[in-house]
């Protein structure tokens, strides 16, 4: 049976600590380069701070972890890639990036409505000896390719190997825990199989407080967010990079 792996991120629980960002980079062997900036760095998981646009005591802020939304329908990056370097895995629903096929044309970055794709501007490098600290389950990528979240595919492989060793066809979801989920100290990130109606994450995705970013464009993201605050839910229809401006439009909510 095919799965649809997805997430529900409870924004009311996110404290903006950034543990998910660091854990993601460590898991995926992303180098910390001195020349990288907020525009050029690789942050497959990026926590953004947005506000309700008010000032002084009426100001409220929320932290939104932005990652590849693993769009289900008309996946924009898949449609524009001339190299078939992006594909939706039918067995898992994960939008996969194949760096070996990527030309670095960056059409997919332009097409992604969530700004969740990053161009690898430099060859990865680490100070002498630090390569011993790299995760052996994930290959390093060279410059000139686009990178993004693949829901810790190496961990999915490990879970599959474990299931195969036990003679099972299906993985145990407890064995497949993406790094960001493992790192989140408040349990704000929840991960599950959205194809399974009994999965608590599926049920949570149907909560009245759940929403998806830019739902109106119809790409059916598999990453859901959740908040009890109306002004936070109203952010969903703005472009992620300009969320605070959009939030100011609903500052009286």
């Amino acid at each position: 049976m095919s799965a649809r792996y997805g997430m529900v991120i409870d924004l009311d629980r996110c404290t903006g600590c950034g543990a998910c960002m660091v854990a993601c980079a460590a898991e995926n062997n992303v180098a910390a380069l001195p020349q990288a900036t907020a525009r050029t760095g690789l942050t497959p998981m990026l926590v953004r701070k947005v506000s309700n646009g008010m000032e002084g005591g009426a100001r409220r802020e929320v932290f939104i972890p932005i990652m590849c939304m693993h769009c289900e329908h008309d996946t924009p990056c898949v449609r524009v890639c001339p190299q078939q370097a992006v594909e939706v895995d039918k067995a898992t629903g994960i939008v996969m990036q194949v760096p070996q096929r990527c030309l670095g044309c960056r059409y997919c970055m332009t097409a992604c409505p969530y700004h969740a794709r990053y161009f690898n501007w430099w060859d990865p490098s680490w100070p002498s000896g630090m390569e011993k600290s790299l995760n052996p389950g994930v290959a390093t990528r060279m410059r000139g390719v686009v990178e993004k979240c693949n829901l810790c595919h190496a961990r999915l492989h490990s879970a599959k190997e474990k299931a195969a060793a036990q003679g099972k066809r299906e993985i145990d979801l407890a064995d497949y825990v993406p790094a960001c989920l493992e790192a989140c100290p408040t349990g704000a990130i929840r991960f599950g199989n959205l194809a399974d109606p009994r999965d608590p994450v599926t049920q949570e995705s149907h909560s009245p407080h759940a929403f998806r970013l830019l739902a109106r464009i119809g790409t059916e993201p598999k990453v859901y967010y959740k908040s009890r605050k109306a002004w936070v839910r109203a952010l969903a229809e703005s472009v992620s990079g300009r969320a605070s401006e959009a939030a100011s439009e609903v500052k009286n909510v």
Partner: protein
Amino acid sequence: MKVTRRDLLVWSAGAAAGLMVTPVPWKLLDDISIWSQNWGWIPQPSHGPVDVKQSFCTLCPRGCGIKVRMAGGWPVGIAGSATHPVNRGALCPLAFGAHQLNWDPKRLRAVRHHGNPASWEDARAAFAKCCNEGPVVIVDGHPGRAASVVLEKFAVNRGGQYRVVDSTETDALRPYEKWSGVPASELGYDLENAQTIVSFGTPLLDGWGIPGQFTRLWAEQAAGQNDPQLRLIQVESELSRTAARAWQWVPIHAGAESALASGIARVLLEEKLVAARGPVPLMTLAEVAIQTGLSPDAIRDLTRSIMAQRPVVAVANDADPAIAALNVLLGAVGAPGGIVRRSKSSTLQVVADSVIPNARAVLLDSTVPWDFVPKTDAEVFRFAAWDAGLSKADWLLPAPGFLEDLTDIPSAPSLPVDTYAVAPNLVRAPHPVQNAAQFLASVNSSLPTVEQIIHARCDNLFRSRAGRLSGLQPTPVTSFASCQKLEEELRNGGVWMAEPLTESFRCELKQWPDPFVSSRPEGWSTSWTSGVLPPLASKLYQESNLRDARERRNA
């Protein structure tokens, strides 16, 4: 058969078309892509048997439980240990990149004397000479460890002084020590039983205490709820991360926390909202209003809101006596849900002053925060695994880095119960290193070793028959057949936890304390003792707009 030019063309076209339906061209294309994108100069991960070890983070005094993924004998990943009874799998963001720290270019690889290379023998001879010439002051940043015993014994034997550097949590508990006589190192916060927490600028959700302890509690009992079981009221001049997530944010003028505590106390007494009688703050409500920027009515409303759900405890970011006095008035001292006593075994410790006069030598342990720079005429010997510059030490001595040293982990400063754990050395340092205890033992051979003290402590725990060991399954100490078994379990990631102390303590407050100027809140990045942060901290401070670079004061 005659082969015509037409046949040749047809055959060629057919072969080309046929080849296209075989996997050969696609495989070749794929292989060329792979080959052309994996140049020899791109570092590749090392391979080897993968194993997961349980240990503890030793980069700050909190000692969170960690799972270390090892490949080929090297740590390749860090995750929180879900079986740790306090952090319960949660870590601060920096810990996830800590395994790369040992390879940081700022790693101190050899002894340095005034910036020049020197040998361990030179350093030992210079230190021994200083010890013979005058008093020595030894500064410890993480008191209570086995290594601390060695440092203290050496200082006492030589007629010198043993001083400690407080964590912000212990610093905030100093007023209670002064009023009750109970050492601050024996006190902790029982936040799990509190129902309202009034935080005066304390970064409760951003690095205060054990990072996972309060964030987990908050997530379970308060996050996003309109009427939560645990009310977090954040008094702070800025909309910090904790303020943004708090049940109520009270914006006041910067540095007016002490005044607001006095104002709340005045309302409590005036409106008889507390049973206790105590000294009345000298500051009037109007004066408090001017200092804080809140109206008198807002202060009254805030006080009623605080008292609506009890037990209440106020948490200070520093040794602000007015906030401590407010806790005394609220009845939060020596009571469940407040400031509690967790042990009765420690002694009063003297806090190190940044000015150290009349000493011939000052030795700073590697646990002393890097930004602690003593003002002294003495010769300064500083142990450190990383050299972040500006230390002003005469001697820089390379200490073991992350996971390279055997050490024990006493209770974290904010905990309400006593704990004990042992962090084994999982990796070998790539160059000669010594910790301060080993160095002192080489000068005075009569000192016990860290190994011996840990063994003796395990023996004491075994003989006490008290408490339990947390692991996959909590085990009472009484279940262990021998001390060796208990020690083995502790060295494999077990955490001993005492039973909560039932004995209470009281604070005598004769007059309301004088106003106090609060210091700037500090988060987890500033509580790290090492001068450098893991390289991947760049994701937080440089490659995103999540955190301001000025938050990174320590590195």
